[in-house]
């Protein structure tokens, strides 16, 4: 007898099994992410940009459940808009990170998303904040998502302070490439966002232009 069961991914939650990274450099931050969105074993979107703008010079990187992460980013985008109108100037990166942290902490049990917040403001320059599970901590660099496990060794060994803008971008691209090669839930193209006092620059690096390593 033929068994007609609907494919699992139709009912499974859509997750951004992901690699995301953000690092501070002299004068700004660089954020990077892969572009794969999976639902079970199926890739639902292979070109999703997981770097979501919270404000002109503040971005966040999404990971975990796609719906939860997108919703948090939208809510914080709105709250930051109101906040920056109230104070009459561009918001601080710490404010954005605090707003994200407040939602992550309050709804800790219901949500399963991790956002890394990074940006540039006048007072503190380039800053990266991790908000995993409702904590708030400023770090020189942060990695997240399922692919981050494979590159902890690499980033710990290779990161050093005082990198230039170009060096930082190359570092982020290398990290993403290594993670995407090893993690089944990360892949596609790499999105890079560089934020400094002069502005925000978004770049896409296609799959065949990513750096290759010894086994490729």
């Amino acid at each position, binding site marked *: 007898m033929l068994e007609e069961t609907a494919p699992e991914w139709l009912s499974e939650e859509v997750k951004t099994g992901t690699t995301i990274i953000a690092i501070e450099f002299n004068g700004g931050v660089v954020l990077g992410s892969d572009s794969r969105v999976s639902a079970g074993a199926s890739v*639902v979107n292979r*070109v999703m940009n997981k770097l979501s703008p919270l404000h002109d010079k503040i971005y966040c990187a999404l990971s975990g459940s*796609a719906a939860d992460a*997108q919703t948090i980013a939208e809510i914080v985008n709105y709250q930051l808009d109101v906040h920056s109108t109230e104070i009459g100037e561009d918001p601080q990166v710490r404010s954005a990170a605090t707003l994200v942290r407040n939602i992550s902490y309050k709804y800790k049990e219901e949500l399963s998303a991790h956002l890394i917040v990074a940006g540039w403001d006048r007072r503190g320059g380039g800053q990266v904040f991790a908000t995993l599970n409702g904590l708030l901590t400023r770090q020189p660099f942060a990695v997240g998502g399922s692919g981050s496990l494979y590159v902890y060794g690499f980033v710990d060994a290779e990161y050093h302070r005082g990198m230039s803008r170009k060096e930082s971008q190359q570092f982020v691209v290398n990290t993403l490439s290594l993670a995407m090669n090893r993690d089944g839930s990360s892949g596609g193209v790499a999105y890079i966002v560089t934020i400094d006092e002069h502005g925000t620059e978004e770049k896409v690096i296609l799959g065949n232009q990513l750096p290759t390593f010894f086994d490729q």
Partner: protein
Amino acid sequence: MALSNSYETPAPGFNFDNAARNAALEGLFDGGQTPKPLKTGTTIAGVVFKDGVVLGADTRATSSEVVADKMCAKIHFISPNIYCCGAGTAADTEKTTDLLSSNLTIFSLNSGRNPRVVMAVNILQDMLYRYHGQIGANLILGGVDCTGNHLYTVGPYGSVNKVPYLSMGSGDLAALGILEDGFKADLELSLAKELVRAAIHAGIMSDLGSGSNIDICVITKQGVDYIRPYQESQYKHSRKTKYKYPAGTTPILTEKVVPLKLEVVQETVQQMETA
């Protein structure tokens, strides 16, 4: 005065009262299966082309192994410039798109303009996220507005993806293969329609849950062309005999008429206000 048999308008929004009833019913069936909700094992696809958006869908609605509806309409009207294909639980997609359409009609009447596709997407995302996946609707929204031609997909948990071409439903992997191979930016109308038709056809051939005919909906700035069906199934069965029997086929042997005597027990007169 509210009479007991008068119609009370139901409270707005979704009502989960029957969830408790269903849970109780499951116990009564003695290990047997409660009737499953109607799922549209489906192939739906959409493509953005030079002048607008083309949406396509098959027309089979299944209830387990039986085809419940051979000509079901899976491309729903949202507004004159936005249409929506639905996969997943048939009832959920129907009701969700109806609700969305009503809300956007009110908006149109209020503002005097056609809604933008992002509006529809945001409202859908809001609602589906609020219900945390309980509403099993996988929707493809396509439309043309003042900002351009857009194609979005919204998942049951409330995730949104904006892409130039996509397919959903149980036949989506087959359809996606055709789309990945044939899609180019800024296609002409005839090529776009053919691409979507081929994609749905692949879904119909390779998936048991999809079948029957192919519907195509073309949305451009000039208007909407809803072609139903665009291509008919070549496996249509024609009935050999008619099932209408002429009067007198069954002979009447005896006839007995018993008049029912009804007594008037109570008479109430209610005056109508005609002033």
